[in-house]
């Protein structure tokens, strides 16, 4: 079983995220980390591999320094990493990212492609479905538990209404939510071993991707302007002295909320 896991480097949780007012892109210069739910996808891939053997390949699109974050997943146990890095791919929107990642995935030829549900920076939770369409493979998203059985896969999808058990033949695309597992910490041995694993960085031309379709050139959405979010207006804060319940009631009545 060959499993590809799409992972993304995002600004570390401790970094104050900002959009560069000139390029109107997310400032990725600070400390990076692997996107949190992608760790769940890596963990799930490792568990499948441990159960039935196979190979876990990390696939990513991002700046060259993203390899540092991919190394953490190698340390967890993934076998190798393929990073597509190209100036011309910077500023890709959904379709561009889809085109680029799908090309990289076509080269990997995995039986199963795993995604994290959402990235902590883009937060669209949209990439898995777009890539599935482009690869012409069945999709199960928002998966809270997964079982691979022979040549089919069954996932429990969490929706607003409850759970849907969905089954699909391999090869398939799966997006996992962070409810699926607890990602392991890399062991010291894993960290040492990661250094010698194959870490390949390729450019668009290596994959035969048309540069016109990705990056800013291929983007069909634009950022026009940046502004401050609307403020909530006047705030009242009071310390409870025994009368807070009455004050809350008065407040909501005054605003005709009841």
């Amino acid at each position, binding site marked *: 079983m060959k499993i590809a896991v799409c992972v993304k480097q995002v600004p570390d949780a401790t970094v104050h995220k900002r959009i560069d007012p000139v390029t109107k892109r997310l400032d990725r210069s600070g400390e990076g980390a692997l996107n949190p739910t992608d760790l769940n996808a890596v963990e799930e891939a490792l568990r499948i591999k441990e159960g039935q053997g196979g190979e876990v390949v990390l696939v990513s699109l991002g700046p060259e320094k993203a390899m540092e974050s991919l190394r953490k997943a190698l340390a967890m146990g993934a076998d190798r990493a393929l990073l597509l890095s190209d100036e011309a791919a910077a500023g890709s929107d959904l*379709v561009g990212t*889809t085109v680029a990642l799908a090309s990289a995935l076509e080269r990997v030829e995995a039986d199963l492609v795993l995604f994290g549900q959402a990235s902590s920076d883009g*937060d669209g939770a949209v990439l898995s479905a777009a890539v599935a369409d*482009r690869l012409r493979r*069945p*999709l199960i998203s928002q998966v809270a538990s997964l079982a691979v059985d022979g040549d089919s896969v069954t996932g429990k999808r969490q929706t607003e209404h409850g759970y849907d058990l969905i089954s699909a033949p391999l090869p*398939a695309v799966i997006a996992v939510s962070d409810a699926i597992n607890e990602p392991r910490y890399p062991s010291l041995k894993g960290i040492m071993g990661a250094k010698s694993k194959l870490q390949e960085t390729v450019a668009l031309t290596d994959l035969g991707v048309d540069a016109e379709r990705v990056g800013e050139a291929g983007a069909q959405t634009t950022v026009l302007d940046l502004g401050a979010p609307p403020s909530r207006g006047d705030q009242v804060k009071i310390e409870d002295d025994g009368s*807070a319940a009455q004050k*809350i009631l008065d407040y909501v009545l005054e605003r005709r909320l009841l």
Partner: protein
Amino acid sequence: MRSLVFLEHHGEELEKGSLGVLSKAASLGEAAGVVLGPGAGALAARAGAFGAAKAYACEDEALSAPLPQPRVDALSALVEKTGADTVLFGASVLAADVAAGLAARLDAGLNWDVTDLVLSGGDLVGKRPALGDTVLVDVGWTSSPRLALVRAGVFDPVESGGSAEVEEFGASFSDFSTLATLVEQTQEEASGPSIEEADIIVAGGRGLGSPEAFSLLEELAGALGGAVGATRAVVDAGWYPYSTQVGQTGKTVSPKLYVACGISGAIQHKVGMQGSGTIVAINKDPNAPIFDFCDLGIVGDIHKIVPKLTELVRNRQ
């Protein structure tokens, strides 16, 4: 602007969120609704009341399970047939996958998490809070059709009382899009109004101290005619069902009143509830982040305040 609005339904009901998007689209131009799945025709007829002049329905059996990929086939065929320049979705687990699949299929730009849509000199502009809602971005499209996923609950459905001409259409399906199949569906039965529909939500976090303390919130919500919501921390702890989780990995809600009890106000929770009309927070820690974005903040103990408030509300009635 000629838009198609994906009207999601659950059982016999059109989702309120997608009807809100339809009303918005109708205020910006010509809007048509589209309902997919067996029974779609009858549901589509209801779109007229929310501003659609036209409603499309595809009753194909391949669309009976709530799975995204066959919907991408149906919608891409409809976009081609109608020449719509805009396709709008109210966010949900299903709609996000349909919108993203359609973007890939049509090679079209998709903006997500849109909280408002305006026409500016003939161009459509989306407002999109980003980076944990710390910045508000104006987004646009450079090609047609323009696709947008609207953040759940930001537009209220407006009943304008019109009627829609319903047109049935057929779709053919790609070989891969019917490979995924629904094996089983388990609904989570929540008692009382669901948090997406409720005008008032009383939400609880770890500050409640125990699952039993949720009964305090249920009583308050009952007295107020509202629903109970929860943070991820208490859902993960098994104190309350996932169907009530508000936030990044739960639901996005926008009631008129949100009462946050023992909730710290982490960014992942905030993104799911900050669209609420009025936010009242009760927390014993004066430095809790929730106090930065609530309207009325009470520094105090929920175990003392909530039962008293319930009693006061009941006495009024």
